[in-house]
């Protein structure tokens, strides 16, 4: 081979290959000799080495190396894993019901805009909607509920009790509905603002409080000299301030709007136009994360439905922000307001995985028309759009969706100034008054709250300082359940008509057809599940049976039958579709010396007529074999491992009655 000279214009990629040490020995020698005599190539080789050394010593910032950074990512990821399971199921169910083809729906929506004229007489009662009857509650103190327990018996609320001398004290109260008794969880100093909300898992309570700038009480002052956002661990009752600020010129009481969702506290900071988040699952002292710095600073108008937030962006549009990915999307604007110069957008609300935009389309004497558009949170294409006309004027003080079928209007009518709450059922196109008139007769608007499954109606504050109200269980309004999801493995597969299938011993004996190679073979990739019991106690087949590892534990070879998890799932991954393997093949492979460390404590994975995993088989110690829940009396080693099949090998008694393995739920195709 000729010596290399620079006149040959050395290809730099060959120097790279030399550095990578992937060239044939002869070429390496020639190139190295050349590099020693050629200043240009020698310097280039040195440069490459310098660059790689420089990069290999490049440090991350300390904040990236902190353990709590990874902890936070993991916690968030863990939440996502759980959520994704749910979402994938929702998508699956929705697809089954044929309502989620976005393209089709978008086209359909363009054609099917419903004009619903609901002519209903105000005050008409339809008590049949509320069955069973609501839970009524009354209290000697006025309080605003912000939490109702699942059984409706416990209400957390903020109370502001006033005395005749006009001083006030504010408390967060745990109210027991049956006993009509309240226990104070937290009491703020006099004249301080309060607003509270518990985490959905009941672990934390958050609230804001402040000092009125004018030294008056919370009823009269509208600015505060200081304000703080606090949390209480409801288990330990310890409290901690998350954020605070003071300004002698005054702070609006809504400076810290907040919500608790997904074990995290979300709050706004109007000074910096920021929305922030802190994961309370890792403790209230964790770092805050700024989600966006484009918040308008409007009070109490961001909403959280993990992992999404709707918030007003400084660009004037409502935005949808994915907390985990950072994707920020502007939501579509409502049409031009009917009343020039005013906004007609009433609200964007989450309902499950959709967002419902609602606004007042038109409002004339004795007739108000509302428009709703629903969007999937994944995009801005309308899923459906609908209008509703209600023959009452100015009833639109508030609107919210119970679900995507039931909408609630709550407000004050102009006729008589009475409070009213109306429930609109999109399915039946029925409008029902649900707030008893007597509530509104007090003079205050009857308030409606949707707290979890509970619809809470209250009177507001009566002159006597008392309050009464009612809880309605909204679960009775749920849509019919979707079709049952994909059949579970316990249901025989349609293509299989004969159970169980058996084979014969291969010429070379069980297991001799199985090879172990460096890559998983995926021409055939099916799964069966084998559960082994000794006297009613499950002994899981360990993970890694059929996976050969090196000294460091890294996989080296995969046998065509192997296990990844100690869940009994046998992966059958072979190079030919239609390859058939039997239980005996799996046991024989498991019995190899390299897998001895994965044998069960009872003994080696061998089944004979007289023993089972080293345990004697006789009149008092019998083996019972189930295939798909049915007893199989033949030699279990001859059972062919079929896709989605459950095989239970039960030694002795009592016989266990296990649940068939959920292949689909565990992300495995049966």
């Amino acid at each position, binding site marked *: 081979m000729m010596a290399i000279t620079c006149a040959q214009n050395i290809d730099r990629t060959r120097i790279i290959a030399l550095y990578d040490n992937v060239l044939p020995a002869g070429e390496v020698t020639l190139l190295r000799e050349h590099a020693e005599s050629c200043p240009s190539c020698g310097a280039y080789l040195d440069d490459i080495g310098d660059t790689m050394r420089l990069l290999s010593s*490049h440090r991350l910032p300390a904040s990236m190396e902190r353990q709590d950074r*990874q902890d936070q990512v993991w916690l968030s990821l*863990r939440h996502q894993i759980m959520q994704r399971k749910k979402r994938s199921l929702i998508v699956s169910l929705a697809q089954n019901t044929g309502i989620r083809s976005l393209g089709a729906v978008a086209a359909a929506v363009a054609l099917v805009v419903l004009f619903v004229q609901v002519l209903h007489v105000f005050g008409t009662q339809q008590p049949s909607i509320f069955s069973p009857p609501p839970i009524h509650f009354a209290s000697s103190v006025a309080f605003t509920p912000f939490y109702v327990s699942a059984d409706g018996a416990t209400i957390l609320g*903020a109370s502001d009790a006033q005395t005749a001398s006009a001083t006030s004290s504010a408390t967060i109260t745990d109210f027991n509905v049956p006993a009509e008794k309240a226990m104070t969880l937290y009491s703020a100093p006099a004249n301080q603002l309060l607003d509270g909300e518990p985490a959905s898992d009941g672990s934390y309570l958050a609230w804001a409080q402040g000092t009125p700038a004018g030294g008056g009480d919370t009823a009269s002052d509208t600015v505060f000299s200081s304000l703080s956002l606090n949390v209480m661990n409801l288990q330990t009752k310890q409290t901690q301030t998350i954020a605070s600020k003071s300004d002698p010129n005054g702070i609006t009481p809504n400076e810290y709007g907040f919500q608790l969702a997904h074990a995290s506290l979300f709050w706004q900071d109007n000074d910096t136009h920021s929305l922030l988040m802190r994961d309370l699952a890792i403790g209230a002292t964790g770092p805050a994360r700024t989600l966006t710095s484009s918040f308008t600073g409007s009070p109490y108008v961001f909403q959280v439905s993990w992992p999404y937030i709707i918030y007003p962006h400084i660009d004037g549009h409502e935005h949808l922000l994915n907390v985990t990915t950072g994707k920020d999307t502007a939501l579509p604007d409502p049409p031009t307001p009917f009343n020039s110069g005013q906004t007609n957008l009433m609200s964007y609300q989450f309902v499950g995985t959709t967002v419902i935009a609602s606004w007042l389309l038109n409002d004339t004497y004795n007739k108000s028309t509302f428009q709703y558009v629903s969007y999937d949170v994944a995009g801005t294409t309308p899923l459906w759009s609908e209008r509703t006309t209600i023959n009452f004027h100015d009833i639109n003080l508030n609107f919210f969706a119970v679900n995507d079928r039931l909408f609630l209007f709550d407000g004050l009518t102009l006729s008589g100034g009475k409070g009213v709450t109306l429930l609109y059922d999109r399915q039946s196109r029925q409008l029902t008054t649900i707030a008893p008139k007597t509530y509104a007769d007090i003079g205050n608007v009857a308030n409606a709250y949707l707290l979890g499954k509970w619809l809470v109606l209250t009177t507001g504050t009566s002159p006597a300082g008392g309050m009464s109200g009612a809880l309605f269980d909204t679960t009775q309004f749920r849509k019919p359940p979707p079709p049952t999801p994909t059949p579970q493995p316990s249901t025989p597969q349609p293509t299989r008509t004969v159970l169980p299938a058996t084979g014969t011993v291969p010429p070379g004996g069980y297991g001799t057809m199985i090879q172990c190679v460096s890559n998983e073979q995926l021409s055939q990739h099916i799964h069966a599940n084998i559960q082994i019991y000794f006297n009613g106690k499950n002994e899981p087949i360990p993970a890694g049976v059929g996976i050969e590892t090196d000294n460091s534990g890294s996989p080296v070879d995969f046998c065509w039958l192997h296990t990844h998890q100690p869940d009994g799932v046998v992966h059958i991954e072979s190079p030919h579709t239609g390859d058939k393997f039997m239980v005996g093949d799996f046991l024989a492979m498991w019995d190899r010396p390299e897998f001895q460390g994965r044998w069960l404590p009872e003994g080696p994975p061998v089944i004979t007529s007289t023993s089972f995993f080293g345990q004697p088989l006789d009149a008092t110690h019998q083996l019972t074999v189930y295939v798909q829940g049915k007893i199989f009396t033949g030699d279990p080693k001859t059972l062919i491992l079929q896709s989605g099949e459950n095989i239970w090998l039960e030694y002795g008694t009592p016989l266990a009655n296990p649940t068939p393995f959920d292949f689909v739920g565990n992300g495995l195709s049966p």
Partner: protein
Amino acid sequence: MRWLSAISLRRYHEASGEVESVPSTSVSPAQVEAFENFFRQYESRIAGYLWRMLGDEQAANDLSQETFLRAWEHFAEISVYPSPASWLFRVATNLAFTHLRRRSAPVGAAMPLTDALADSEDMGIDPIAQFDERDVVMQALLGLPAKQRALLVLRGVYGLTTEEAGRALEISLAAARKMLSRAHQQFRDSYQHAKEGK
């Protein structure tokens, strides 16, 4: 009362997703535990790689999470790969490229000096020297085209072979070597330039 009204207003704007309940499905604790071990083993490398690609801690953390979310969906397969890191780097690379395409702001706002100093002091490191060198290298990296940057970081920082790094970028070995040669040259130039500018 003033604050009661505030609560009421907020509540009117809320809607609960709980009413629309969905059937829950279960993830076995063993699966999650195995995945957490996997996550702990590789996440710092992926997050570090993404930070070097994006120059943005929050984005690096977010995309690292997204990378592992995808890993979770294929965990049964990739957990037994001889080199799961290659798969993770490939996914992280694709996510980083997508992120960079969508990002309107220019790449590479380096961490504010004051933050960096505080970070380093916390760790007991000479902050000035560390920041200087790290920042110079980072500036040089962020000055490279994204693919060149990815290739150089995978090769130089994370020790992938040129072939493995090329695979993460879905380019041939020959193309990877050419690109690495160009990336190296440009990095050296940028590094010298940044160093002189300090």
